[in-house]
């Protein structure tokens, strides 16, 4: 598998099809992996692919939108690429996608690999990349299933319980904006969190502002979050952000029959209006 990725990367760089391949290399703990930008064909042996390759690399494409770029992408990451293509943030002709068939990765932290899979993999039914130029692994033909049992508990809470639940988590947010910086869907030139005029959310790192930041950020990702789980994975204070994202994903599916990032052509529900949309006016 890794030889296929390295050979393809080498070919792309040698033929100057792309001038950079974004993939994974071993991290400094010699256990997990980290993103790497390969510019020279001689460097392709740094590339690896294994169950620790958690990062969604599609975010990096935004800064390289005008430069021909190769990228190693898992199925969930390819949904990120599709999201960006759909929202006209990338040029398809500048992309070479090395899609990798994936049956799930492991829960990892620096210096630590757990035996279990992250939540995003436990509920994932997309094992074949949704868009690719070159496929590594045998495509899996499997009807996608949707299982949202991970959010049943929070859905069954009373509003007061839910508020208490989120208060406890958001209170310890330090507004490092890691969730935003890692997210493929967060590419605003000026984020509402940074904007001063008008001031949407103050700089104060405190419960009220944290609540505004986390909820508005979630709303901006409704019908857009591709469930890669990176925000939750990197959160330094362990806020279960995927519970919000998964709820939005479920509602989007049920209300609009839409899954973000599956297709590049379908206009996303919040970018259009259809008479048959279930949340019409006064119905």
């Amino acid at each position: 598998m890794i030889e296929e990725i390295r050979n393809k990367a080498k070919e792309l760089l040698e033929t100057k099809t792309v001038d950079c391949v974004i993939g994974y290399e071993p991290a400094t703990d010699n256990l997990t992996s980290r993103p790497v930008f390969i510019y020279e064909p001689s460097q392709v042996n740094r590339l690896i692919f294994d169950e620790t390759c958690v990062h969604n690399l599609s975010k990096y494409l935004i800064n390289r939108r005008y430069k021909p770029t190769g990228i190693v992408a898992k199925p969930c990451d390819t949904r990120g690429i599709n999201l960006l293509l759909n929202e006209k943030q990338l040029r398809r002709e500048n992309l070479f996608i090395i899609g990798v068939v994936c049956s799930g990765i492991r829960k990892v932290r620096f210096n630590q690999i757990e035996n279990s899979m992250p939540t995003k993999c436990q509920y994932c039914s997309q094992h074949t990349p949704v868009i690719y130029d070159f496929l590594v692994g045998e495509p899996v033909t499997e009807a996608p299933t949707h299982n949202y049992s991970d959010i049943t508990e929070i859905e069954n809470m009373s509003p007061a319980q839910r508020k208490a639940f989120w208060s406890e988590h958001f209170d310890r947010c330090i507004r490092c904006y890691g969730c935003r910086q890692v997210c493929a869907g967060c590419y605003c030139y000026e984020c509402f969190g940074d904007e001063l005029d008008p001031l949407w959310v103050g700089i104060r790192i405190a419960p009220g502002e944290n609540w505004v930041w986390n909820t508005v950020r979630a709303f901006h990702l409704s019908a857009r979050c591709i469930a890669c789980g990176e925000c939750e994975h990197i959160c330094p204070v362990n806020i279960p952000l995927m519970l919000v994202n998964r709820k939005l994903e479920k509602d989007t599916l049920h209300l609009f029959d839409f899954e973000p990032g599956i297709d590049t052509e379908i206009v996303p529900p919040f970018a259009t209006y259809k008479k048959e949309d279930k949340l019409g006016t006064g119905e």
Partner: protein
Amino acid sequence: MTKVITKEDLLSWLRQLAEKYAIIAPVTSNGVTLYKSVGSSEIDKINLNFSKTELSPKNWFFPPSETLFTIVKDELPRIIPASVDREAILFGLRPCDAKGIALIDKAFLAEPADVFYQEKRDKTTLIGLACLSPCLECFCTSVGGGPADLTHLDILLTETAEGYITQATTEKGKQLLTGAPRQEKEIIPPVLPSLNLILAEGITELMPRVFNDAYWDRVADRCIHCNICAYVCPCCYCFDIRDYVSKGKIERVRSWESCQSPGFTRLAGGYDPRPTKGAHFRQRWYHKLLYFPPIFGDIKCTGCGRCVRSCPVNIDIREIITDVQRMKV
């Protein structure tokens, strides 16, 4: 003979101290260990066996946000400065984190002193816990610290099977310890762990030559420019100041800021003297390893390894130091 305090006595002493002092100690919940204020009835919640807290104890002196003053809008603005209400004990610091506070002291207590920081600093006693099982990413001994370094603490506790060895290094610490229920025991002090060494010595002299190297842009490729490294760091102290208005009251608020954030150097009108991501990225390392030392006498790193552990994309200060040392110019 060595003076020790048993775990039970330590906890009851803390319970007693909590009547007078605010106790700030490591507490684990929701999968993270953070320094929290614990009342006398919550002393049992203190985690005495944590490896490293997710956030550093700098939060106590330099909180994520604090109100510098409040203006009540009547006829003329009247400024009501913020102040600290009572003395505190910061319990369970690792020696590396105590050094982090000492590094912030250098900047914040330099003339003119930051009065908000100083007030909290003066009113707080630091009780440390020697680090007997450091994490794999720790490297305190490479930057002048050590797992039982008591230089920057008031009191250091070292765990043994017989209880905690107590050492007071300052007058403040000695005063506080007089009230602790201790026993004289024959104790074999524990063997201190040895840590992986990186050769950080001489790094300051090497930094100027590699300033314009493409290396910084290449590592910045991977950096996602979040603020995690700066916010988990025990000695990063950049900040922002803004005003808040609510209900006829204006508050001037100071909050953490990071050199990686997009508006860090951007001026009103949009001009940014440090415009590229590579330059933002480089500033972090140059401030820590080159700019801070000649002003304040030390590199701005405690070797706690938090940035290494929390970085989403494995930007590792140990690797940066060794890369710089290997770079040929």
